[in-house]
């Protein structure tokens, strides 16, 4: 639209997002940077022991300078473990959320497009998936197939897929029966174009909100499974396993548990805020 844009409305200038969103952006950015630069940032390896400084409290609570967030009962540096845990948990949470969203949305679109038998199969799967307690499914899969990180992420990806499938199917059907998708279809657009270029961007806001809801759930689920010993296996570490592990020392050394718990809370909160903001930003009618 180069030569048309002569008098494009100048009102859409860039505006700084609200403070809370800025904080959320900053926090998520910090977490991502931490995850990517874990090897550079961490002062120690997450398995390195310092037996002379076991259960050392953080700086300011009588701790030693070389362990800013204290150490656990084996003298492992909490700060270093936290950094590696952030990398692991973000990998799991983002990976699983994206897998779940992609799988659910594709199946929902398939159901909406083909209707009939395909739709009934997908919806049966959705009901099946929604009626099984996920923890039991996860336990049985991990018990049968053993534990590997890839399998674990894929398994958690199955956690909320039925939600995306339901949303995508319902919205695609309503758009297809009456509205823009029907209009685009009768323009001669291929299903790829219709779903990729029109339906998906239009329902993306709902899916994004759903993803920001699923993201904290997956972090918590990962914590729960790790706590049960089925998630991330030691010596690998994740935020959830740190919390589960630190629970035993809750009264004597609360810093082992508190720092990963704070990271979980702040990250899930920031993702929710960001998702909410992003949904509004992506909608041209709300600008």
């Amino acid at each position, binding site marked *: *639209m180069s030569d*048309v*844009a*002569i008098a*494009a409305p100048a009102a859409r200038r860039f505006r700084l997002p609200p403070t809370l969103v800025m904080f959320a952006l900053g926090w998520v950015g910090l977490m991502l940077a931490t995850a990517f630069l874990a090897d550079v940032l961490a002062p120690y390896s997450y398995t390195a022991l310092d037996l002379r400084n076991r259960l050392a409290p953080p700086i300011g609570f009588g701790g030693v300078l070389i362990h800013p967030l204290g150490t656990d009962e084996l003298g492992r540096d909490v700060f270093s473990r936290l950094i590696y845990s952030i990398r692991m948990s973000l990998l799991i949470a983002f990976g699983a959320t994206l897998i779940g969203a992609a799988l659910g949305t594709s199946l929902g679109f398939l159901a909406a497009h083909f209707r009939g038998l395909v739709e009934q199969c997908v919806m049966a799967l959705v009901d099946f998936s929604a009626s099984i307690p996920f923890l039991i499914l996860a336990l049985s899969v991990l018990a049968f197939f053993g534990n590997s990180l890839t399998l674990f992420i894929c398994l958690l990806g199955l956690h909320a897929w039925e939600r995306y499938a339901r949303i995508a199917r319902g919205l695609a059907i309503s758009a297809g029966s009456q509205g*823009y998708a029907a209009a685009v279809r009768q*323009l001669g657009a291929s299903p790829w174009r219709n779903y990729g270029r029109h339906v998906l961007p239009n329902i993306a806001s709902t899916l994004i909100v759903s993803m920001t809801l699923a993201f904290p759930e997956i972090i918590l689920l990962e914590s729960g499974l790790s706590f049960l010993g089925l998630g991330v296996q030691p010596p690998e570490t994740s935020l959830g396993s740190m919390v589960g592990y630190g629970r035993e020392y809750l009264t004597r050394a609360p810093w082992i548990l508190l720092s990963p718990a704070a990271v979980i809370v702040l990250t899930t909160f920031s993702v929710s805020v960001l998702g909410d903001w992003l949904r509004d930003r992506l909608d041209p*009618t709300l600008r």
Partner: protein
Amino acid sequence: MRTSPITTPLLEAQNLMRRYWMRRGAFGKATEVRAVDGVSLSLERGKTLGLVGESGCGKSTTGRLVLGLETPDAGTVAFQGAPMPAPGTAPWRAQRARMQMVFQDPLGALDRRLTIGVQVREPLDIHGIGDAAAREKRVLHLLHATGLRPEQAERYPHELSGGQRQRAVLARALATDPALLVCDEPISALDVSIQAQVMNLLVKLQREFGTAILFISHDLRAVRQVSHRVAVMYLGRIVEEGEPDDVLHSPAHPYSQALVSAIPHPGRGGQRILLQGDPPNPADRPSGCAFHPRCPVAFARCSQESPALTARPDGRLVACHLAHEPAIARAA
């Protein structure tokens, strides 16, 4: 009269029938609903056929059938002499460049996340017409032809008024220079003042682009303004077809008479034909002529025998026992 034997019409539909199955209650028996029941129509290049009828009479379904968006349960649609490909197939998609639809609700028909310019260009992108520069030019030309300003290409649908949106929908529909345009109630969602503008625009665009139009509306006056022929539908069937002025001035079918008398007219009060009975239920079709329970001049034969749509001596097509036999009309 309907089809000249030498040239094939642009669009020829024969005995279209479309059934739906409706279930009453969770365990009720499925009943057949004939939304369209034996409709035949033909449309010449560059001409407009108006299709009038009350809501639920099957006029929109007829529009979807002739566009090939749905397949009829019986009957055939031929576009430029060739039968319609199955919906969703590649030839069907390619054929969309030749036939387009204009919807009742322009805001619903436009993607609210894309600008008008992108959407008007979309048919060109889909069908791979011209290079980027040619498409830009075409978009500007279409915007101009439909009375939109060039800078409105940068706007989103919600930033335009209802009339401007319908113009944008028209511009998009005309992008590939289609031979057939089906307008399904294109003006009923608009203000009265905008309605006239959009109808004038339709007439102007038809002259400019040479498009044949199937104009579906419940507004007899709107249809008269744009159409070269008018067909009146009642409960899935065409009951009368003829020249717009003839049908409006001397409607032959009792239902058309009631429709015409319902047009508000200054200085002509108290002459309206008020139809008796309930609006028709396609799931429970009356026997014989579907209109007979509400018809003010029905007689015994009407409830037994369904009248065929046949031509009168003056060329008008009417489906009514009385219209063809004035003797009975007088006796009744």
